[in-house]
């Protein structure tokens, strides 16, 4: 009975939502009919039913394979980073680069250097790796030190602690990483299909369908993609729901983590790790080009970029265009970042305050994560115009989801015993959140922030490319058409460097705050 009740409210909300959508769509109330009604989408799906099987199968293959590979790498890397903390710092640059690289910059290179399914699998896997890695690291590092002590006093190695304690207690967190990875994998595969010139896959279907000006078709594709992602999401959500209860500590662990004070005591190794963090992405970049034997005209090595930007005949004009574009992009990135975080934070909080509402909202959230923005652009442009509000919308939709899921996970892990303290004094839900749950999930809040920050720039660039025609995104897209690979690599490198800088800022704040709060950092 309790189970029924638990599902009744969200179900009612979903039905209400669909109804509103149907009415609004049927009456062409939104953007002069650019948003079709639910039934129109379904009818469209039915009419196109013969087209879908092959496309869906291709997308399933690519995204499924990418999902498995990306997440496996993410989890293994996360475990490695926690076992050997210095490696996390060494790999930081590379990790962020993987997360922050604009797909519009790498997709052409991937489809040029790899063939068949591989570019799709790679893009899908890239969408999974960082999120899952971050979720794994935060989960592992937040495990209970009392349990670790227990294993240690029986001579257990760090590896055994990892196996017996950390991994298990990180499971809900890892599963939340997988939940975010599911739509990312599908979207990654679709984006590669969209651009890569193959005939099959939902992305290819989308590209052919875009020219028809039929929103039903685009939404049909979006809905099918969302169903694929939603299925995976649902499975992992159920699993994590089952795990979370028994993963939560019974009583709050009060031990203060040992100070990560080796920074001060070993400045040399710290500087070395920092240097490696900066060097590694360049090293990989260079190795990538060397190994795949990309022709020099297309591939620019780091040195090539420096040359392009400072010593080539085009240097002057390149610099000017770059600075102008940067100047347009950066301010809005800051605002978008704040908006994305705020939105994620509010959602995460409402997951505690209004769980029913949230369960109904989840499918909508998933649509925003799986529906390629290029398909949504006409609607967004009609609704929001081509200015700041559209850019913010796109940035929020690109950033909020991982942050929200990870944060909601952290919130759900707060031991009941701790929350009860506030409840025993009749605290309102809001007070309880403010005094107990939010501070207690602070490490997750920072992990969420770290997931958001590198993506904000990407969101702004996508909006610029699709709708506003300004800034770095536009510059990147224009350069693609002119085979101006010097500029493509420059913009890609610059956006990665910016992402790393933003990320590093968060890390610095995180360390200070968490140390003051006596909490262990996951960075």
């Amino acid at each position, binding site marked *: 009975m309790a189970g029924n009740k638990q599902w009744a409210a969200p179900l009612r909300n979903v039905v209400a939502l669909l109804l509103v959508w149907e009415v609004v769509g049927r009456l062409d109330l939104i953007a002069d009919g650019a948003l079709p009604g639910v039934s129109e989408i379904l009818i469209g799906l039915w009419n196109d039913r013969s087209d879908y099987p092959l496309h869906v199968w291709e997308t399933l293959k690519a995204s499924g394979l990418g999902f498995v590979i990306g997440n496996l790498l993410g989890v293994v890397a996360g475990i490695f980073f926690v076992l050997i903390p210095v490696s996390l710092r060494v790999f930081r640059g590379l990790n962020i680069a993987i997360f922050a690289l604009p797909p519009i910059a790498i997709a*052409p290179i991937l489809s040029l250097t790899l063939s068949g399914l591989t570019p799709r699998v790679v893009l899908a896997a890239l969408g999974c790796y960082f999120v899952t890695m971050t979720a794994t690291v935060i989960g592992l590092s937040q495990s209970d030190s009392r349990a670790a002590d227990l294993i240690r006093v029986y001579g257990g190695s760090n590896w055994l602690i990892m196996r017996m304690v950390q991994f298990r207690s990180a499971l809900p967190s890892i599963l939340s990483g997988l939940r975010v990875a599911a739509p990312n994998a599908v979207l990654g595969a679709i984006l590669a299909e969209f651009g890569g010139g193959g005939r099959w896959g939902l992305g290819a279907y989308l590209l*052919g369908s875009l020219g028809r000006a039929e929103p039903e078709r685009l939404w049909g594709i979006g809905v099918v993609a969302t169903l694929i992602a939603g299925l995976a999401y649902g499975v992992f959500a159920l699993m994590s729901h089952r795990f979370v209860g028994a993963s939560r500590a019974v009583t709050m662990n009060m031990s203060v983590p040992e100070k990560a004070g080796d920074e001060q005591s070993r400045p040399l190794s710290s500087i070395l790790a920092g240097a490696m963090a900066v060097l590694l992405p360049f090293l990989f970049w260079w190795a990538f080009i060397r190994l795949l034997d*990309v022709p020099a005209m297309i591939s620019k090595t780091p040195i090539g970029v420096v040359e392009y930007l400072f010593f080539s005949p*085009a240097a002057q004009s390149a610099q000017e265009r770059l600075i102008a574009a940067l100047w347009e992009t950066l301010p809005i990135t800051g605002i978008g970042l704040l908006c994305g975080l705020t939105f994620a934070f509010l959602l995460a909080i409402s997951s505690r305050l209004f769980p029913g509402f949230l369960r109904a909202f989840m499918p909508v959230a998933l649509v925003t994560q799986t529906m390629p923005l*290029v*398909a949504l*652009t006409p609607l967004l442009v009609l609704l929001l115009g081509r200015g700041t509000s559209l850019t913010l919308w796109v940035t929020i939709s690109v950033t909020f989801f991982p942050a929200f899921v990870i944060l909601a996970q952290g919130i759900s892990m707060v031991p009941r015993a701790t929350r009860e303290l506030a409840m025993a004094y009749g605290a309102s839900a809001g007070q309880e959140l403010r005094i107990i749950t939010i501070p207690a999930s602070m490490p997750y809040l920072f992990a969420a922030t770290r997931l958001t920050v590198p993506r904000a720039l990407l969101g702004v660039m996508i909006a610029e490319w*699709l709708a506003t025609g300004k800034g770095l995104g536009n510059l990147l897209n224009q350069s693609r058409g002119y085979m101006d690979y010097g500029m493509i690599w420059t913009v890609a490198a610059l956006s990665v460097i910016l992402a790393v800088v933003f990320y590093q800022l968060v890390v610095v704040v995180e360390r200070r705050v968490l140390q003051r709060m006596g909490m262990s950092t996951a960075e």
Partner: protein
Amino acid sequence: ASPFAMQASWINDAEFAGYFLGLDKGYYADEGLDMSYASGGPDVIPESTIITGRADLTLTTPDTTIKAISEQGAPFKIIGTQYQKNPIGIVSLKSNPINKPEDLVGKTLAVPPVNVISVEAMLKLNGIDKADVNIVPYAYDPTPLIKGEIDASLDFTTNVPFTISQQGAEATSFLLYDFGFTIFNDTVVVTEETLKTKRKELVGWLRASRRGWEENFVDPTVWPPKWADSWFKGTGRTIENEIYFNKAQQPLVESPNGIFSMAEDDIEACLTALGQIGINGSRDMFDTTLLEEI
């Protein structure tokens, strides 16, 4: 038969009818070619595929190709052109028509970012200040045009008007070509290396493709329906759309000297137009000798 790879510039639509026909009818096999055909897409930059050796021959927009040759010393040669006249034009609704460049003043025009320079060149050629036109990005979907969010867009005039008519509106359009931006499109490009080593195959390809195109244009409504379950299967487009496309492109492809031919004054016009946007090509980037061997 010798293997021969062709990279197209877009997804399978009527734009490539001649090649589909040639493949289906075995015209390439007749020339001793074991032809493989790869469709394109937004992330496929055709010139890149011939540099990396993934394809022997590709179809390109000449502005990109010539810019790459002149500025980066890319080893490309243009050995023919599918479109004598670039089908790209300014499309608008009859209800809010834009029939000539001057009409663009004060309007919002959606342009794929890669084509912005072309539009700017056309505006300049017609004495219009580019600051007077509000240029925004265009991403494949004509909905904003149909809904009036933008006044016009730059697109294939052979294609979009059909979509617009399907949505119950009527389109009007003009080619950039007709207002001074006189360039080819879908130029046939190979590397100098290929030109040297595979000359025979290239001539064979041109001959087979010309046969395909000529047969296609005998009646442009005949072939697209035949490909509903092969070349056009699952593209998301309609056969009526392809028929419209095929009909509309006929005058742009056909040439008195034979399909793919590049007349000297057309090459000259193409180079001049590109010169307007700072792309400085030269006659030696074109090689018309293969056409003579067909």
